[in-house]
């Protein structure tokens, strides 16, 4: 068994992470772990450090201090990069190529068999657009191409930055079903969102505010501990409680 495929090793372990971007301390001192096969929702207002944390985990962010271990190896290690899929908030695919051509390229870089391309297209339900140039697709469809480009590599860890923004409710539901089935195959998912009702789809939630983790619990656990009826309300209470402390 290769390093990090052992379910006992956490998918992500962050210890004392500190990131400064453009003179601003985005993450002052963050520590957390994500277990393998877990679907973790990363929630918080914009500017709370969600994207910076995700960029640090996938190894594209310059980190000022702290230790990040991903699938048993330091974040950004060559072997880890091959096993992590990262989908940025705006679709990062080639607009002048077709859906298939994009996936063929990213598939080739991952040394993935061509069957993975079909599987990825099915997973994001873009079969009928496979031959279309990405630039001619809608924003939501482009986002799904971007997701498929990460899926062709069969990642063990999938880091998704606001994947459901701008999607209609049906597509959002389908996408979450896809995430769940990936998790069923043992894939760990870290999904950021600022839509609170999506948090219920996650196994657990990390709530970030000003670069600090103010809650880390299951959706039900959050409701119970705050006494709130829904998650939106639970978050508001947590933030107010945080405000009282400072």
């Amino acid at each position, binding site marked *: 068994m290769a390093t990090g495929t052992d379910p006992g090793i956490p998918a992500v372990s962050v210890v004392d992470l500190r990131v400064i*971007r*453009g003179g601003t301390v985005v993450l002052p001192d963050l520590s957390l772990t994500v277990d393998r096969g877990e679907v973790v929702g990363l929630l918080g207002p914009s500017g709370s450090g969600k994207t910076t944390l995700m960029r640090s985990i*996938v*190894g*594209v*962010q*310059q*980190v000022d201090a702290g230790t990040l271990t991903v699938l048993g190896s330091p974040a*950004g290690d*060559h*072997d880890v*990069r*091959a096993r*992590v899929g*990262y989908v*940025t908030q*705006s*679709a*990062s*695919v*080639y*607009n*002048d*190529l077709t859906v298939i*051509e994009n996936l*063929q*390229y*990213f598939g*080739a*870089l*991952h*040394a993935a068999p061509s069957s993975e391309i079909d599987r990825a297209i099915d997973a994001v339900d873009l079969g009928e657009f496979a031959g279309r*140039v990405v630039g001619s697709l809608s924003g939501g469809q482009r986002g799904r191409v971007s997701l498929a*480009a990460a899926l062709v*590599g069969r990642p063990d860890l999938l880091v998704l930055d606001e994947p459901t923004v701008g999607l209609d409710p049906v597509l959002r539901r389908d996408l979450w079903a896809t995430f769940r089935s990936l998790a069923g195959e043992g894939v760990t998912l870290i999904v950021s969102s600022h839509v609170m009702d999506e948090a219920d789809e996650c196994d657990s939630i990390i709530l970030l505010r000003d670069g600090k983790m103010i809650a880390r619990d299951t959706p039900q656990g959050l409701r119970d501990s705050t006494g709130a009826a829904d998650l939106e309300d639970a978050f508001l209470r947590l933030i107010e409680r945080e405000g009282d402390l400072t």
Partner: protein
Amino acid sequence: MSARATLATAQRVLRQLLRDRRTVGLIVVVPSLLLVILNFAFDSQPATFDRIAPTMVGLIPFITMFIVTSIAMLRERTSGTLERLMSMSVAKLDLMAGYAIAFGAAAAAEVVVAAVVVFGVLDTPADHSVIAIVAVGVLSAVLGMVMGLFVSAFATTEFQAVQFMPAFVLPQLLICGLFVDRSRMADWLEGIAWAMPLTYVYDALDRLTSPGSLGGLFWLDLGVIVGAALVSLSLGAVTLRRRTP
């Protein structure tokens, strides 16, 4: 290094280029058209045309590929695809080699068409092998490409990237010896000319289009061009950063 990743990148870049038919047409047709115009401009001085046209065949792809690459790399940066590639395990060298193969092929098409026009249609005499001129033309295109890749890191918009052409390429073209003999320039300018990679591209082409044996200096010119390309490539690799602030 992985041959698969290199070839996949070359194929991807070529596909993008070929999908843009108008750019392909401009790359292939414009240099030849310029040379035809030049031929008529030097209507009463055919000897001058015969001297400069063969060197132009090799110098133009440097300019074209500098611009095309700096824009292509800038797009790769602004579209987020570079960040995606950098988050993957693909080697930087594979990406750059893929780019070099794709744009090298485009440059080869450009040079071959220009060579057919200059040496075939316009019947300009060549003192040495036309194939050697084409080969130096492709080499100069690769040099332009890696320099374009490097400077694209300093552009944040396409406007800036386009302006790098007059800023980085035109001075080199003005002092390489094509317009004025370098020995007749101000001493300090001649000194700068010796430090510019395009000077050696011009010299290599000039030797190929002059009578007499090529001599060891021709190979020295080629050595300097390859060396300059490798230095630019390393500098370019430094600008492709895995981790950004």
